């Protein structure tokens, strides 16, 4: 799986090609240093092994949260696929860095959205839940900083990915599920 970009002249709409998924917001870049701006759209090419991490049984029954969980799983899967695919580590690094940043940003966004939801429904364990989110966010941020400082050592990134995956699945099926049970019980 890989990232690539397509360009189009201004005013022309870009559709995702068959078997591809748009992952970035469109950018406007002046390619030829004139007043002609082109639309640039990034895509992620889907491979045969796309979407294997997410399972329907991970749904907790809160549509907003389930949608975001699915997106989060997809992004984690993209990151893991980038670092696990065949090829020299140095050649894979640009894609690994890009997918890691992409995943990291969504972790932060999702946690924030989930906590807003928890506040809206008066979830009694939201402080404890927030602390769990905070601890994990700090861990991800620290890892990203260490990787950047140390040149993305392969073994460390592989270890991070393994831990990330196990943590995420457990968080959804155990911690977030508690939130769902509260919603069902209280009719929030």
């Amino acid at each position, binding site marked *: 799986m890989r990232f690539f970009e397509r360009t189009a002249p201004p005013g022309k709409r870009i559709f995702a090609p068959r078997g591809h998924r748009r992952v970035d917001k469109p950018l406007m870049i002046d390619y030829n240093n004139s007043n002609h701006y082109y639309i640039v759209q990034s895509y992620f090419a889907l491979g045969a*092994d796309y979407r294997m991490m997410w399972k329907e*049984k991970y749904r907790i029954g809160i549509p907003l949260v389930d949608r975001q969980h699915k997106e989060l799983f997809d992004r984690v899967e993209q990151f893991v696929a980038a670092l696990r695919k065949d090829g020299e580590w140095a050649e894979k690094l640009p894609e690994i860095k890009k997918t890691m940043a992409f995943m990291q940003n969504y972790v932060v966004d999702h946690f924030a959205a989930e906590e807003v939801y928890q506040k809206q429904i008066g979830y009694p364990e939201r402080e404890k839940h927030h602390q769990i989110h905070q601890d994990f966010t700090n861990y991800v941020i620290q890892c990203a900083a260490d990787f950047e400082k140390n040149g993305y050592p392969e073994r460390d990134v*592989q270890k991070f*990915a393994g831990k990330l995956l196990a943590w995420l699945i*457990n968080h959804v099926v155990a911690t977030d599920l508690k939130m769902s049970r509260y919603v069902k019980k209280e009719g929030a």
Partner: protein
Amino acid sequence: MLDMEITRADSPEKADAGKDVTVTISLTGDYSGDVVFRFPQATTLNIVKTLSGMDISQVDDFATSMLGEMANIISGNAVSALSETDCRCDIRPPKITLGNGPEQTEGGDSVALRSGAGDLREQFRLAQS
């Protein structure tokens, strides 16, 4: 737990000690000592497949780190349950080794477990502080 059911087994499957992944979690507090998880290679590869959807042919850092986090979660849950009985314990980060680690797995009580991904063994070497 973690997308898998784990139950007690009568006896663990025969393991190749050299290829097992051993995860040791040390406890401190009212009880101190070690909890040791032993994952045979086949179980390890199946767990990775179950959680990530990806086939791997050999155990590597990605796989061992995943198991380390699993053991960390299991132990953390156990310590939380203990705290509800006024027993205060804490856990240290997991130590992961490939192979048996003989001095780590001798003695203590042992229990064979079965998961959807294969058999594993858990060993307890704990003493009341």
